[in-house]
């Protein structure tokens, strides 16, 4: 059921519930791709969240040679407009740039994807649904499957794989990752979707069961300031 990352996929689209961890995962995946590929882009089309968007880490990403394309022209922070920069078509069309697309949360965030879905070659595109089972709206398999259906309907795209990204930020414990693994395996059993990755908050990486589904991606929190750690 779990599978090795699809090496063919040039375009990786991250969808899911808001707060599932799409933006942190997008940054992580883009940084990972930049180690192996010359042309990498991160396309942030989040029109749902006003704060904590992957474009806020433009400087870090550009330092690693990643092209950052956001949805508002020239302003990365402080605007709340559903304006999509036409620049996003460039990496989707050029046939070679490895591209991570960070969609906004929920079906409402995924709707933006429908505007460029015709440009996407299904053989080159992976549509991942990020699952955080510690979020009350996606705490069980039924809720996740319903959410996938709603995202597919809004975006006109088919979700092709899952990411178990179950976490409680710095309060994450092994049991949370395991509980998310159970939920994702059940979703996988019912839907036939493979589990591509398990995102794991860095501090629990050393204490993980051996049989987690998918490739492990250690997550260091790029969007959380040090004072955001709960006291």
């Amino acid at each position, binding site marked *: 059921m779990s599978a090795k990352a699809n090496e063919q996929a040039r375009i990786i689209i991250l969808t899911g519930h*808001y*707060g599932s961890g799409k933006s942190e995962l997008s940054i992580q995946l883009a940084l990972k791709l930049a180690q192996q590929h010359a042309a990498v882009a991160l396309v942030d089309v989040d029109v749902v*969240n*006003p*704060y*904590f968007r992957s474009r806020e880490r433009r400087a870090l990403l550009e330092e690693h040679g990643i092209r950052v394309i956001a949805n508002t022209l020239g302003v990365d*922070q*402080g*605007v*709340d407009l559903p304006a999509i920069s036409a620049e996003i078509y460039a990496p989707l069309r050029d046939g070679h740039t490895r591209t991570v697309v960070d969609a906004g949360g929920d079906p409402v965030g995924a709707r933006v994807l429908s505007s460029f879905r015709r440009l996407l070659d299904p053989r080159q595109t992976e549509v991942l649904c990020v699952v*955080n*089972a*510690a*979020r*009350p709206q996606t*705490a069980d398999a039924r809720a996740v499957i319903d959410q996938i259906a709603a995202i597919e309907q809004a975006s006109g795209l088919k979700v092709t794989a899952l990411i178990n990204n179950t*976490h*409680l*930020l710095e*309060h994450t414990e092994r049991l*949370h990752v395991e*509980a998310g693994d159970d939920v994702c395996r059940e979703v996988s059993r019912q839907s036939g979707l493979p589990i591509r990755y398990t995102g794991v908050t860095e501090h629990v990486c050393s204490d993980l069961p051996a049989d987690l589904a998918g490739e492990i991606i250690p997550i260091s929190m790029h969007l959380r*300031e*040090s*004072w*955001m750690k*709960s*006291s």
Partner: protein
Amino acid sequence: MEKVLMKGNEAIAQAAIHGGCRYFFGYPITPQNEIPEYMSREMPKAGGVFLQAESEVAAINMVYGAAGAGARVMTSSSSPGIALKQEGISYIVGSEVPCVIVNISRGGPGLGGIQPAQSDYNQSTRGGGNGDYNIIVFAPANIQEAVDLTAEAFEIADFYRNPVMILGDGMIGQMMEPVVFHETPKRELEPKTWATTGTGGKRAPNIINSLHLDPANLEKHNLHLQQKYARMRAEETRYELYQVDDAELVFVAYGTASRIVRNAIIQLRETGVKAGMIRPISVWPFPQAAFDQLGSQVRALMSVELSCGQMVDDVRIAAAGRWPVGFYGRSGGMIPAQHEIVDACRSMLEEVA
């Protein structure tokens, strides 16, 4: 899983339902939109009513009506939206009906911006409405505290027949943290015999009103309200003291600013500078009593705010000339870095040396 990961706004909305809120009237504005969004989905499931009003003014007057009928009711908005509600808030206080108002504040003045700010301190603690009045204002510094205070706010509002405000800067609304929904502390509440629930032909009608044309009556009403505010000052003041026992410099900070200050204190102490913090949890009533507990080793106070300096006036009043009072703030949605606060502390201590 008992602990769930929630965004501040969602958690506040859920906490309201948990605290017995069954009516929500609001109007969208960033960065609090997840509250009405959550309410629109979850309130009907709880058997309650969600209504998106045509404006903030309409929403607060719907709150006034529902509160007058004895309901547990809430509205939420952000800074300029709260400004629009001030007339309604003054009427609600004058009429002595309970409600909860959430302000997830952003930079101003005017439309300002959508990033977090604490420049609504004066608007919240002094009120933008007319008349001699006060509302209890709680300013949570993390999402768990926001949950606990929001749920309890309904009990407190009912107890005093007065609005309670939850004041969170945009960051408190937008950030995520794990939370647990505890049982809410209950108060002994009188039945709402004053509510306009229909006479059934058995009693004289109840009237919800803030109009008192006879000056002697209005003064009597005001004196009665003042007695309530005195009791709130005595019984509803909340604060946290952090490392003040040996502190030479005591910061005063609430909400998001207090989180950065806390880290700054840890850094300062690692380099031998003894700093501490008074963290108001209720910004009205302001925790005067906390200042009376400070020892003679304290050399200076410093208010740190996401504003150009508003709470600092209350700090000066509380200090009553006993200590010099400094200020450090950023505004417009800018958030001070830890090192800025560390530097501000060092220069203040040099100044008073």
